[in-house]
């Protein structure tokens, strides 16, 4: 799901030689990318057996763990960046996960599919749950339980008094500066307490 353009954007935000924790890191390719482009040190957290094996094959440090149960093994402020890429919407305890990210990390980087994308809105207008490139699931088999729009996430940050340091909304591989909540498919945020 995650495209190289996402990697580029995240890599642009991450300072060289910093420490990174990638939550739901999958096969570890983002960490590999950041190691190569930014010389970071880091760990992935992944719950899936196949992901663990791929991470080991990719030479990435990975901890098998369920994000929902928190990051108990990780101390306060242990990382410069904590990344949650395309996983926020699948969390049951979304707010607690964000709190945990900012407990263990100086900054959080979150990416999620924008539910406000016009095609999603149109599908709802025509009476159906949205299905798209970024939301490829049917309502009955989706892991996504907490969808939000760019506007929703802005409001969430405001309510929690989180400082948004960078925001990038993309339409597929291109940046979408105009009407991001209507025309953007993927949102990327970098924020701190």
């Amino acid at each position, binding site marked *: 799901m995650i495209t190289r353009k996402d990697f580029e954007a995240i890599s642009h935000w991450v300072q060289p030689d910093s*420490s990174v924790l990638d939550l739901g890191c999958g096969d570890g390719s983002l960490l590999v990318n950041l190691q190569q482009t930014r010389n970071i*040190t880091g*760990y992935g957290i992944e719950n899936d*057996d196949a992901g*663990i*094996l791929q*991470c*080991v*094959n990719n*030479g*990435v*440090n*990975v*901890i*098998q*763990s369920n994000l929902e149960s928190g990051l*108990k*093994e*990780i*101390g306060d402020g*242990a990382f410069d960046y904590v990344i949650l890429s395309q996983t926020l919407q699948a969390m049951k305890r979304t707010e607690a996960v964000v709190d945990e990210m900012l407990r263990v990390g100086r900054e959080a980087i979150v990416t999620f599919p924008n539910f406000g994308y016009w095609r999603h809105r149109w599908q709802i207008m025509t009476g159906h749950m949205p299905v798209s490139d970024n939301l490829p699931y049917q309502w009955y088999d989706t892991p996504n339980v907490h969808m939000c729009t760019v506007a929703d996430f802005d409001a969430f940050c405001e309510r929690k008094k989180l400082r948004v340091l960078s925001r990038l909304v993309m339409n597929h591989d291109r940046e979408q500066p105009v009407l991001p909540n209507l025309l953007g498919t993927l949102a990327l945020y970098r924020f701190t307490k």
Partner: protein
Amino acid sequence: MIAIPQSAHFAEPLPLASGASLRAYDLAYETYGALNAAKSNAILICHALNASHHVAGVYENEPDNLGWWDNMVGPGKPVDTDKFFVIGVNNLGSCFGSTGPLSINPDSGTPYGADFPLVTVEDWVDSHLRLVERLGIDKLAAVMGGSLGGMQAMCWSYRYPARLANALVIAAAPNLSAQNIAFNEVARQAIMSDPAFHGGAFASHHVKPRDGLTVARMIGHITYISDDQMESKFGRGLREGKNFSFAPEFQIESYLRYQGEKFSEYYDANTYLRVTKALDYYDPALDHGGDLAKALAPATARFLVISFTTDWRFSPARSREIVKALLHNKKNVTYAEVDAPHGHDAFLLDDPRYLGVVRAFLSRVAA
């Protein structure tokens, strides 16, 4: 693969944690694969409670005597002996060839028996280091073990950080819980209360505390298997129906008795007491005010920590304590929590996820 048991004699005294020292000692070991010219491809395998240096392969004259980790170690296996030079070593105090209670005490000319000193995990590691040096190896590519063997691998990592590049700590714990120690104590009491034990001097009475050893092993076996696994393997199955007697009627009873009796034939009671005590004593955080992270701070190895979800003897939570301490120190660590049904014994069994992670981890280890 044909394994050849070897023995190394060490004439230099070994100081022990207890303050005692062993004047001289032998270590039984086996090696598999070839040591490369740079002597950089060696992996040391540490064994758990009742195992030995016979890690893989069979003996030429004992084609059924398969090494205890033969599914893990061998040509093309996760610990690939085509790439690595693998060393299996028997712990001091054991009854399988290394100096232990059955060996002759040079001071008396008779077997040590109860006079064999208590040895610790640290003592084992110190003695194994001498074997590694004897083999001309400066730095091991990895030290690896499950359960008590995992504790030894962990001990290597901070005691001799320059001596290993990788540590594989499997189904282990940073120390025993009170419950673990309780099980060990019940096992020891079973042995020591056997009238044939004679305070450990049973050899001079020409008997063995077999009943005590049997019960000790039965208790151990219960803790190595998960409740679910015991249920699915034995359930409430009866061998022949109810006879209203205390003969072994339930399948689980006959299984435990069989395992216990088999064990009592080949295992030494004084060894069992010492090995369980070494387990009880192991606690690297103790010298650091209970802070495991401080204990592990000197480590430089890359770690692979593996636990099994149904292991209630050394539960995943215990492995996570090790992971937490390593993360605190920003060590290179990967942690896999394998959802295997078998309980503690899973570390000896064939789970493709478990074996796959070990294989992948070692495939990236430079030989």
